[in-house]
């Protein structure tokens, strides 16, 4: 097995031209014929993991479309980006999904947005765009303008047709519960009595076309605002990942104090997000006391965020090259006091709750995801760590101030809902300990780098460990202070497909807890279609209603 970095670089050089874009990150440009072979080596033989596939329209620059497969090699602390140029006439390259099933969605997305065909892909259907979207319009291509597109679509009335189609496909639900709502994640469960035999998923109702807006209208320093609004729960981590990607591309050195402040806020965000998750889990298990108590403690963390940044959510603290606001001694003292209180309270509350029979009997050995399946689907974050895979961007690809901290990466082998809860439980206390280290050791210095200049057409990769898992942003800088291509990949993108594996063979009543266990954005509002295999009657329910036993 290859271990050292030079050996891997020699191997990459055999396949194509290797270019170092920034620290520990290499782009290897290869011909389409060799993609599968190299991806197989990177994912399976070198024990790295597939992270994201990015499509890009580079016709104005070099006359080709580009596809980038990003792999993270945790052991070697390397990131390898496999770049394939796609012929703009044939638009065909081999798919890597047959080797790495986790690439399924990523390739379908590139097919939607750029019209690139992935040969031998098992299911190259539309993923994000609606099924009746006009053929041949690919919104992220550079020759597509937002305004013209809107005009074209208005004529066709795309939105309305989708609705009618949906009604034909799904029988109108029975009962007083109204189904037609927010559907960020829409699951169809096929049941036989109480047992789930199959599950399907249709999502992307919240697709807002963020990438198009960022590439067409916003300047480099405006993008952090929209990046923060990708997710209202873990937005800051997207913000940091984007800024890091641009800083890496432009080789900007961020002052240490700014790095510390970023880490502090990232950890505060993690604690609040995990507490939110515990609340949701308890609520879905019908344990509302737990929900209320964890959210009460969470308010202390929200206050802390407000004291440090001025807002409870969407902090707006980052600039490319540093942070906007400083933290003074008084705030540090107050933060440390709050953290002591939160730690004391949480130990008391969560220790008791995780031992309750009502909780353990509904989470242990439920929603199993084996290590092999987890590797195949390339899951990330707490879901991977609960299935015995030790992966953590903070440890293996250190960013911000994490290389200076002492912390543990909790790993459990059981792969059930309970171990996912345990991973998050451990992480909360690790985060609190990290926060204390950060607040005590924060160095003096500047907040922003001087001379922030961003050169044209440079690539940068920004990695952060979001509360839900690794978060990857690939940025190609453009002309006139804009980004040419920006692809943020949120952790749930890799994790959601794994719920379909977890759900099979489980009881219907456990479905809410299983779906919530991967921490998809906010499961309370999700919908599930229940289909009885025997009678073939379809019923649409909200997760909450299943939790109530409806």
């Amino acid at each position, binding site marked *: 097995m290859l271990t050292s970095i030079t050996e891997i670089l020699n191997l990459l050089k055999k396949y194509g031209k290797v270019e170092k874009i920034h620290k520990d990150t290499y782009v290897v440009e290869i011909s389409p014929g060799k993609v599968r072979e190299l991806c197989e080596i990177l994912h399976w033989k070198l024990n790295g993991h597939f992270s994201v596939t990015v499509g890009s329209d580079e016709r104005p620059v070099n006359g080709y479309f580009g596809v980038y497969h990003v792999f993270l090699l945790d052991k070697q602390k390397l990131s390898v980006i496999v770049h394939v140029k796609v012929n703009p006439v044939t638009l065909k390259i081999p798919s890597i999904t047959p080797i790495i099933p986790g690439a399924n969605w990523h390739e379908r997305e590139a097919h939607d947005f750029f019209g690139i065909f992935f040969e031998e892909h098992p299911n190259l259907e539309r993923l994000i765009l*609606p099924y009746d979207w006009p053929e041949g319009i690919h*919104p992220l291509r550079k020759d597509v303008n*937002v*305004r013209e*597109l*809107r005009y074209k*679509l208005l004529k066709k009335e*795309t*939105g*309305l047709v*989708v*609705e009618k189609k949906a009604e034909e496909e799904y029988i109108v639900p029975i009962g*007083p*519960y*109204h189904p*037609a*709502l*927010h*559907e960020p994640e829409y699951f169809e469960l096929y049941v036989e009595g109480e047992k789930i035999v199959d599950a399907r998923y249709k999502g992307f*109702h*919240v*697709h*807002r*076309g*963020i990438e*198009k*807006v960022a590439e067409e*209208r*916003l300047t480099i320093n*405006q993008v952090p*605002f*929209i990046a923060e*609004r*990708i*997710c*209202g*729960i873990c*937005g800051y981590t997207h913000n940091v990942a984007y800024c890091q990607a641009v800083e890496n591309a432009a080789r900007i050195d961020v002052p240490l104090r700014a790095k510390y402040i970023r880490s502090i806020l990232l950890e505060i965000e993690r604690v609040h997000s995990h507490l*939110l998750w515990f*609340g949701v889990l308890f609520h879905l298990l019908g344990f509302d006391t737990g*929900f*209320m*108590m964890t*959210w*009460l403690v969470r*308010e202390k963390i*929200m206050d802390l965020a407000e004291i440090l940044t001025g*807002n*409870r*959510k*969407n902090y707006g603290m980052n600039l490319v090259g540093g942070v906007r606001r400083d933290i003074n001694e008084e705030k540090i003292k107050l933060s440390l006091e709050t953290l002591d209180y939160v730690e004391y309270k949480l130990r008391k509350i969560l220790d008791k709750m995780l031992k309750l029979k009502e909780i353990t009997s509904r989470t242990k050995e439920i929603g199993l995801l084996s290590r092999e399946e987890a590797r195949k689907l390339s899951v990330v974050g707490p879901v991977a760590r609960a299935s015995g895979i030790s992966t953590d961007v903070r440890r293996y690809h250190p960013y911000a101030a994490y290389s200076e901290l002492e912390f543990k990466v909790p790993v459990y082998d059981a792969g059930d809902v309970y171990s996912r809860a345990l991973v998050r439980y451990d992480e909360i206390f690790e985060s609190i300990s990290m926060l204390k280290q950060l607040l005590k050791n924060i160095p003096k210095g500047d907040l922003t780098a001087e001379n922030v200049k961003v050169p044209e057409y440079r690539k940068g990769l920004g990695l952060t460990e979001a509360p839900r898992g690794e978060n990857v942003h690939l940025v190609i800088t453009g002309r006139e202070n804009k980004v040419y291509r920006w692809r943020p990949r949120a952790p749930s993108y890799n994790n959601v497909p794994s719920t379909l594996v977890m759900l099979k063979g489980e009881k219907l009543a456990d479905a809410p807890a299983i779906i919530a266990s991967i921490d998809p*954005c*906010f499961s*309370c*509002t999700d919908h599930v279609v229940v289909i009885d295999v025997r009678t073939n009657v379809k019923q649409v329910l*909200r997760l*909450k*209603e299943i939790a109530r036993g409806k």
Partner: protein
Amino acid sequence: MCGLLCKLAAWARKKSPWIFHLPAGGLCNGCDIEIVAALTPRYDVERFGILLAPSPKHADILVVAGQVTKHTKERLLRVYQQVPEPKAVVAVGSCAISGNVFGTENYPLAGTVDQFIPVDVYVPGCPPKPEAIILGIVEAIKKLEGETRKS
């Protein structure tokens, strides 16, 4: 003229308005979690009788967060029609009001909430604090009261 039963209903509506929370699609969940935070012990709106209704048919106040996407347009209208009269609509957050950084012209988006349904109270902020959301709901209650008096 308002009979006894109607007066009782108006009193009950004022003392315990039920809200239906509708995330309209183009949003980041920030407003949603702040609405949920308003229900938890620190703010505890339940002591005022404000309750999250499971269905729009049981609700008095519709709380909409986020701007409307093409996927959710029809559904928003359908949900609005299902809320019984008298009803009030509270638009929470900048996305619902103006589209925020996402703009209103991008391909998956249909527009702001008030382009599709009448909005009574706007709660600005990104996301607004739970206190602001509670104030918005109180304003909506006033509107409900006014309407019952008129009728």
